[in-house]
């Protein structure tokens, strides 16, 4: 279930922090895998991954891989961007409902046209020089 890795020149405009716990996620992402945590007892997923299950507060969690497929719930194009993102503006961001029932927010890669809501998308890895991010691309 490897994700496509799209090379992006330069550094991430606002790099995420990596903790001892979340490094597992970011390392997997760099390798082309979208993973998160699941409560062992109730089988419930969460995103972002957490060292406990937020539904039951059990600390018995396991890493699981996600399909990287979902549907576009909503989207917008940001024209007025913060200084950190000014060079990229305008850019498209959106909300994706993954097939596993998780709602996430991410960058949207498009060919310029507005993608269709509820249409299928896939997650790809954006491989910046300083580390990975992810994005959704309409299929």
């Amino acid at each position: 279930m490897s994700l496509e890795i799209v090379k992006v020149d330069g550094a991430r405009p606002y790099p995420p922090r990596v903790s001892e716990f979340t490094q597992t996620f970011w390392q997997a992402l760099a390798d082309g895998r979208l993973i998160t945590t699941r409560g062992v007892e109730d089988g419930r997923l969460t995103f972002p991954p957490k060292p406990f299950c937020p539904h039951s507060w059990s600390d018995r969690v396991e890493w699981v891989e996600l399909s990287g497929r979902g549907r576009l719930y909503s989207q917008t194009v940001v024209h007025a961007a913060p200084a950190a993102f000014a060079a990229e503006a305008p850019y498209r961001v959106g909300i994706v409902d993954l097939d596993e029932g998780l709602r996430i927010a991410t960058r949207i890669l498009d060919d310029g046209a507005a993608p269709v809501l509820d249409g299928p998308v896939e997650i790809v890895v954006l491989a910046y020089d300083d580390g990975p991010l992810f994005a959704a691309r309409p299929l």
Partner: protein
Amino acid sequence: MSRNVAVLAAAATPVGRLQSRAGDELQNVEHEILGRLVIQAVGEAGIDKTEVGSLVFSHPRVYTQQLYFATFMANYLKLTADAQVVEVMGNGMTGGLAFDQAMADVASGRADVALALGINMETAAPTVEHMNRTMRTTGDIDFHTPFGFTPISWYAMDATRYMHDTGAGRADLAAIAVKDRGHAALNPIAQYRQPITLEEVLAQRPIVEPLGLYEVPPRSDGAACIVLAAEEVAVKLGRPYVRIRGRGFFHEGAHQINESGGDMTAFVAAQRAAATVYEQAGAGAGDMDFAELYAPCTIVQILVAEALGLVPRGEGWRAASAGEMQLGGRIPVCTSGGCLSRGHPPYVTPLYGMVEMVEQLLGRAGRRQVEGARLGITSSELGNYNAALLHVMEAAA
């Protein structure tokens, strides 16, 4: 509530650009602006300063140089307090929480008189730099912010989804901006008072699609002070006052999006808080004569009005276009001009909402007076309305 709470008076500066730049020879200092308002509001309330027991401040912006502002102000005004002196913070809910906390201090008997007050200064900070900070407020800085989400980008996605689900068009949302400007034209403390047309709104440059410049909030400074007291104090004073009839709060345990999915435009927290506030008030959505909502974008005003039951779910855009939400309409919303035209100094915006409630319920709103206004509702929020705080108030003439 253990005892009834009254609002006696409110004072606010005109919303606009008040903040000085770092290099300006003469500086507009926050304590002078707010100090004047406190003295004005307490004076209008007919209260002696020694009667004040609680000072609940909205936390000032990071640009405010004088830190520990609340206790500094207690000194500046030589104002003793035996209930509490505190700053509260909760995003767009900040001013609402200040009001709510002052109310709770009175309701519980801690204080007979409490002030909810604050100042928000930010306009001297360039917008792109300011956004470098605000993008860290409305999202997970590790799992949202790196993609470039801005505070209003979440509302824009509400709009995109709402249009998809209901068939509303851009013009149906934009109508809110025209209406609000019409209200602001009648409000002497509004930031933008020149009437605008639907064509002008639609012609503005895009900010976060589908929202253009006139559909998102301006940058604003502002300050306000509200005087609350036990109803028995109000009765003794023998003047008209406002009675708080109910209070509702709900946080859905989500921030911007709910990882479990669901209808993002339903504003579940506002629905839940509304059920509580209407029950406490012993009145329903249909009983409200007007509403002053925390709504930083056109779409938000529609969605909150729907969540509070003021207009039918999924039909708010029709109600807006049909003029139901304007002065003279069935349920006037944001008679102050709202965030879009009255202006939006975020941490005190809900206090400006309270100012409008007081003006309307005391019959002092002049040309924007809602005729026969007896009951009104006000709101404030966290995140993308992931939490809502509501108050219903009534005129007690």
